[in-house]
């Protein structure tokens, strides 16, 4: 538990992805089974204990140092689990601290009545970092900025395997993943992949622009609309039906309506959408479904989910990935024609004569829910990863707005001495008729290194206020912000939120007063 706690502690302060990977790899190499397997389960979201409620933690705290001191402490720290971890002291005569495996196995057996006493013993034995990690684990609040995908990448790295290989066997395994580690770190055999029901690493597209497209032969390519939803994989085998995100996370729980509609066996690639009255609803509607762990009947009714399929990887026990796109497409269409398949349809091919024709179609298509076009080579097999050449995404030109920089924050890692994260705002009128800036988004990329140095200096020279790592700046600098969409938002004070905003240009030529208004942005909401 102590080693795992040190890992979590280091991860929680380390913002850079590569550094996180290195930390996890070092831990997985140095830690014996089954602890590292349980750690992997914890990092991939596969350990779910709700063994300790806030009320229990608070009562422990009161018991330990009295209500007044505990209150002062909690007030200062601001986090209940951390407060308890800090005020509790390691007992000098306590036994050795528990291993992670011991913690997990004990909790799996312990009754609710036994848990508090066990927990107290562990708190006596662990150090402050160990107590913090334990309490975070038990309250289900383990957030250290590591995605399941990143943890799997780290496991793959210690065995020098591509992450796709790990993804392929992942869902046939369970914690503490002994066969996986045997395979990756000893001479064990590769675990069997539960074919057909397993997550298969998806094929990804490279971005392309008009100039580059002209170098390609249009006869080789098929075009589909690029839907503004969530890429998913529908996998079904032997009664096990799952919906995976692009990163291999099992999202079945949030979409029972889709899972229920699966009455076939195979693995399909498609776009998850909310579809209302035959039309694709805005991305925001889908987001509302994604944000819930459990779905209410009302949600199911008002935000019905739908999968628009564009590829088939396995069908009735047969791996189709080596076939060409055209052959797979024929199989997919034939399968769809077999019978009605509620909640599923096929993304139609966009017919075009040449690139100029396709460019026109792309320009004219301003329909909701379409982000641009996908171009796929007709003769290409389905390849995991992001191979160069067979698949391209040709996004619709972004929307632009002129906003004013309001705050700047220091970045992380290499950028930690630069003010590289910018909050920008648009104008609006207050109830008293005064004009003020309301924040509409935050962006931390889109600029060159040289522009970053310029922006950093500008921030330092125009600071009006400091709050920790954040600086408030004079409301003077206009930033042209590019984004992919606008939605109404209750989280933002301005009432709008921009999708995927980035800094497109620095507009030193434009006076701040002439920047865009919140109203203009609201008009862009579909």
């Amino acid at each position: 538990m102590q080693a795992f706690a040190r890992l979590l502690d280091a991860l929680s302060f380390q913002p850079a992805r590569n550094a996180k990977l290195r930390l996890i790899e070092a831990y997985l190499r140095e830690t014996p089974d089954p602890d590292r397997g349980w750690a992997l389960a914890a990092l991939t979201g596969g350990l779910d204990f709700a063994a300790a409620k806030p009320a229990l933690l608070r009562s422990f705290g009161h018991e330990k140092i009295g209500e007044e001191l505990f209150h002062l402490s909690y007030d200062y720290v601001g986090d209940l689990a951390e407060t308890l971890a800090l005020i509790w002291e390691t007992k000098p005569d306590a036994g050795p601290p528990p291993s992670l495996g011991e913690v997990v196995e004990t909790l799996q057996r312990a009754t609710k009545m036994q848990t508090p006493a066990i927990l107290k013993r562990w708190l006596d034995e662990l150090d402050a970092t160990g107590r913090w990690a334990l309490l975070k684990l038990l309250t289900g609040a383990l957030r250290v900025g590591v995605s399941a995908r990143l943890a799997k990448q780290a496991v793959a790295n210690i065995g020098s395997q591509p992450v796709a290989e790990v993804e392929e066997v992942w869902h046939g395994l369970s914690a503490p993943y002994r066969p996986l580690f045997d395979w990756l770190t000893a001479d064990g055999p590769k675990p069997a992949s539960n074919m057909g029901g397993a997550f298969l690493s998806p094929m990804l597209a490279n971005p392309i622009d008009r100039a580059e497209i002209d170098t390609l032969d249009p006869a080789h390519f098929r075009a589909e609309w690029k839907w503004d939803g969530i890429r998913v994989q529908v996998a079904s085998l032997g009664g096990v039906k799952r919906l995976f995100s692009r990163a291999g996370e099992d999202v079945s729980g949030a979409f029972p309506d889709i899972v229920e509609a699966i009455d076939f066996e195979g693995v399909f690639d498609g776009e998850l959408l909310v579809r209302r009255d035959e039309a694709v609803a805005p991305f925001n509607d889908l987001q509302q479904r994604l944000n819930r762990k459990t779905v209410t009947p009302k949600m199911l009714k008002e935000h019905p989910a739908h999968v628009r399929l564009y590829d088939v990887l396995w069908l009735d026990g047969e791996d189709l990935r080596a076939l060409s796109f055209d052959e797979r497409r024929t199989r997919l269409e034939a399968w769809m024609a077999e019978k009605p398949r509620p909640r599923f349809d096929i993304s139609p091919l966009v017919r075009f004569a040449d690139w100029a024709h396709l460019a026109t179609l792309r320009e004219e298509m301003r329909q909701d829910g379409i982000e641009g076009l996908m171009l796929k080579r007709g003769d290409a097999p389905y390849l995991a990863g992001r191979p160069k050449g067979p698949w391209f995404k040709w996004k619709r030109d972004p929307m632009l707005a002129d906003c004013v920089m309001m705050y700047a924050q220091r970045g992380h890692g290499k950028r930690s001495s630069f003010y590289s994260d910018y909050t920008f705002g648009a104008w609006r009128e207050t109830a008293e008729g005064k004009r003020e800036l309301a924040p509409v988004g935050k962006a931390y990329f889109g600029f060159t290194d040289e522009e970053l140095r310029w922006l950093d200096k500008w921030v330092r020279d125009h600071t009006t206020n400091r709050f920790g790592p954040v600086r408030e700046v004079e409301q003077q600098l206009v930033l042209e912000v590019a984004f992919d969409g606008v939605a109404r938002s209750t989280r933002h004070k301005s009432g709008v939120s921009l999708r995927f905003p980035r800094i497109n240009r620095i507009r030193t030529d434009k006076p701040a007063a002439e920047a865009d208004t919140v109203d203009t942005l609201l008009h862009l909401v579909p």
Partner: protein
Amino acid sequence: MAVNRAVITHGHGDHARPGHRSALATPETLAIMRTRFQDMPDTTQQPLKYGDTVTMGDVSVSLVPAGHILGSAQAVLEHKGQRIVVSGDYKRRPDATCPPFEPVPCDVFITEATFALPVFHHPSDAGEIGKLLRSLETFPERTHLVGVYALGKCQRVIKLLRAAGYDKRIWLHGALASLCKLYEANGVELGDTALISDAILETFKGQIVLCPPSAIADRWSRRFADPIAAMASGWMGVRARARQRGAELPLIISDHADWSELTQTLKDVGAPKVWVTHGREEALVAYARSIGIDGEALHLGGREEEDES
């Protein structure tokens, strides 16, 4: 606030000010003050060694080690059989750069309270230095920038690294140079150190560089490729504080007493009356009262929040 006769416990900026007519302090503290305040030509300096006594009117004054930094002392004042001890800043754990705190039984104890909350239990120094050395192993190509206060923390961290067997060169920001030299002149050996500005053809990959905390966020740090920002301070024990300071590798190394050291000290000096100042008075006053000590918060001027902890 400049006064006629000042008794100075130690050289930190919130305790030692220039401009007094005369200043009584340990010889080490006076040396530190001369380094910081351009030799203080207008101040009469009265060195008083640990354990020696002087009389000022009908008050006798002596200085006793406080274990905080080089030269740090508690002021022990006696008047008609009454003894008052002013702790200054102190800690109870060993520190290779200064003699350890000595508890002096007294009638009134005026204690500091920088870390006077039960959440502050500073872990072992060796364990924290171990974190730094482990990070060097995991990231052998990255420069490890360690933010330290120039007086005390800097030299203590170097000594802790040496005690852990780290004998490579330790690089210093220019602002740390003069005080390191002064420590060495006072018998605190720091091993192989060098100034960043003296480096030629050095990439600092996998090296330890000490600098003032503010330098990490400063343009100065851009000369290092992909640095890791470590920060050595007692505040690093609380995650939100560590994050606020931008630490990627927080090292909980403090020159102040933590909660258990503070409460233990109240018991050790056995004073029936305790005045709490310089920090979070409320919790320690509450604790003192709960064990039957007449505790009271004493608000003194001139304190700068968290400058050298």
